[in-house]
């Protein structure tokens, strides 16, 4: 399941709910990404999505990951709108029979989300605002799965 939301979320509560009622799942791996302050350079992040397009694209990748890593379930929650440093911005959980697939799926989904998911991100800080693009590292990370 893929959810884009403006409201903050509690990663612990998401993980607990995701783990409930599973008898055949041996492994759940989750990742929580937090918005960084960049040593004071960022006072808030503005994350824009294209509703109906961004969620459909992420859903498509989540479905592909389900097949590729033999997952039992996937959950992706992504904040959009205004985000303050320290707040969770993204949560990914993957459930599989065994840990290797779950680790790899979470890693893969995060690499996709960081570099290829259709979001537009702007940092606001004391020195003004700037649009963010994926770093070389982000792009190289995503290529590992091609």
């Amino acid at each position, binding site marked *: 399941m893929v959810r884009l939301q403006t409201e903050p979320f509690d990663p612990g509560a998401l993980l607990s709910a995701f783990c409930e009622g599973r008898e055949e799942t041996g492994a759940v791996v989750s990742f929580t990404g937090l918005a960084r302050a960049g040593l004071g350079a960022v006072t808030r992040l503005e994350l*824009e999505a294209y509703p109906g397009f961004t969620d459909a694209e992420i859903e498509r990748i989540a479905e592909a990951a389900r097949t590729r890593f033999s997952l039992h379930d996937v959950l992706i929650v992504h904040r959009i709108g205004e985000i303050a440093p320290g707040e969770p*911005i993204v949560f990914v959980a993957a459930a599989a029979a065994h840990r290797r697939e779950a680790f790899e799926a979470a890693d893969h989904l995060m690499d996709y*989300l960081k570099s*290829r*998911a*259709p*979001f537009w*991100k702007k940092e606001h800080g004391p020195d003004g605002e700037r*649009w963010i693009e994926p770093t070389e590292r982000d792009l190289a990370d995503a290529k590992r799965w091609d």
Partner: protein
Amino acid sequence: MIRVLLFGRLRDVAGWRERALDPAPASLFALKNLLAAEDPALGEALAGPGVQAAVDKALVRGDRALAAGAEVAFLSPMSGG
């Protein structure tokens, strides 16, 4: 009538996020030409590297006829999450 949406830095260049155009240009290229004639800075930005277009929420390469009621989105290079 068609709706035009801008994402990322394109909306800063244009100073708007969403517009309705009536009458509707017949094609995606005609729309780009119209926007560029009106606002050369936006025209230049639309032709920039990594800018993609989506018609009715599907990415389109090249030109495409625009039906009445179409939603056209111009997408700046994506930032990721």
